[in-house]
């Protein structure tokens, strides 16, 4: 598919090194706005490394560094002058395991807005309601917002984490790192439903171990294998007539 509008994220020959090891070996990819990009591949393929390069969370790992270029709206996010804190407010992330912070549901959701300096109680209340509704959690928790987030079930915690990301007013891109790997089918369905609605407003990148999930949710899909991006294209094509034999083997379940 050829994009008419410029890509939201442009990636040029991205290489990520973990010590001596090259975990990502030159990825070039244009990620269009307002779509769900699915990233599939066996474990160790570099999917998570790729995702964490996009919000520079890899920076926190001592001997990790990236080469190449990642442009967000045309601006190089690895440029020394680029504000990494501002980047992470624009590029939110949902982790594989739900991590509610040890504070109330309410405080979990307003964590980002408070950091951005929002003090107005009415505005925070409004953010909490909007975000929890968008994450399909509002009805379950609206009467106990002061309860600790740690007391929610795993599926609820993951939706709380989604709400926490959505609460950031600067948010433009959502990164999801196997967000449903530990969840039951109903919670998974709720997250997937949320994603299909959210893509109207945000650019979504979904790493998943579950190829069926990519087939259900993603508009475009990229297949990663051992640090290389093997193939990238419309989801339908990747799952029916992929160009590369390895992609075909993977999506038909012959390995991985």
């Amino acid at each position, binding site marked *: 598919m050829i994009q008419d509008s410029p890509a939201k994220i442009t990636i040029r020959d991205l290489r990520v090194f973990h010590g001596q090891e090259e975990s990502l070996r030159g990825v070039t990819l244009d990620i269009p706005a307002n779509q769900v990009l699915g990233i599939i591949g066996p474990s160790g393929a570099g999917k998570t490394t790729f995702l964490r390069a996009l*919000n520079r*969370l890899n920076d*926190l790992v*001592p001997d990790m560094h990236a080469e190449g270029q990642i442009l967000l709206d045309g601006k190089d996010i690895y440029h020394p002058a680029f504000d990494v*804190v*501002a980047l*992470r*407010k624009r590029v*939110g*992330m949902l*982790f594989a*395991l739900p*991590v509610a*912070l*040890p*504070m*109330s549901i309410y405080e979990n959701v307003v*964590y*980002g807005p408070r*950091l*951005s300096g929002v003090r107005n109680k009415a505005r925070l209340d409004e953010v909490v309601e909007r975000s929890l509704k968008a994450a399909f959690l509002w009805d379950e928790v609206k009467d106990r917002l*002061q*309860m*600790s987030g*740690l*007391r929610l079930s795993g599926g609820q915690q993951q939706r709380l*984490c989604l709400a*926490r*990301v959505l609460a*950031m007013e*600067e948010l433009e891109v959502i990164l999801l790192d196997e967000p449903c790997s530990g969840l039951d089918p109903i919670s998974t369905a709720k997250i997937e439903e949320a994603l299909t609605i959210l893509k109207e407003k945000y650019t979504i990148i979904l790493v998943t171990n579950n190829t069926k999930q990519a087939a259900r949710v993603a508009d475009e899909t990229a297949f990663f294998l051992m640090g290389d991006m093997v193939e990238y294209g419309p989801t339908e094509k990747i799952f029916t007539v992929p160009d590369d034999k390895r992609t075909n083997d993977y999506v038909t379940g012959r390995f991985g």
Partner: protein
Amino acid sequence: MRIPPKVTQVLAVALLGGATLLTVVVLVFVIVFVLGKGLPEVTWEFLSTNPKDMGRAGGILPTLVGTILLPLLAIAIALPLGVGTAVYLTEYTRETRVTRALRFGTDCLAGIPSIIFGLFGFIFFVVGLKMGWCLLSGGLTLAIMVLPTIIRTSEEAIRAVPKSWREVSFSLGATRWETVLKVVLPNALPGIVTGVMLGIGRSIGETAAVIFTAGSALRMPVSAFDSVRTMSVHFYILAREGISTEKAYATAAVLIISVLLVNLIAYGMMHRFIARRAR
């Protein structure tokens, strides 16, 4: 030849239980012995009046005040320094030879006999800086003495905060400092309080370092540059110089009860704090 598992099981329970029992018995004996000898002498008057005749008669009010002020001053100095160091070592530096050397140094410092700190305090603060025997010299010396304990316990507590919480905080656009303030320190607090309690306990019980630096004046301290005597020192002097065995035991009884109170209050505060967060 093998002893049947049933027998080893019974033996293990007996030995472990015995060890526990012995520990508790010794502890209870010490407390009951001191309280039994000391408590009859402890009256309101004993707590609220000044000593007379070097402590042969009268009360222990100035030493009670000294016992409260000196550890408080020590902790007030050591807590920000210690927690600050711990945060720096865990959050702001990577594990290198330098941090390992610092940690090793801290551990060594924690094991140095208190009288060495007393000697240092005497030479540096009392004589060198011409501060004399006073509350401030003593507080500074005790602060240096408890600093390693506070650093190490804080460090352990900070390390125990899950890495994933920090990652989430960073991923939501927090700076390292904001992450420290909002996620790391609140959750490390119980461990930090434990370190502070250990520090207060050590300060309250300290004699050698205190005599060298805060002196042993029996007057009521009115400024940071007055010499003070703590209950531990008072007890030591009463007993060592044979001034009054009864008053010594009474002082010891008050000392034990104070330490118990401090611990109870700290645990109560911590409990409320945790309960408030985990609602």
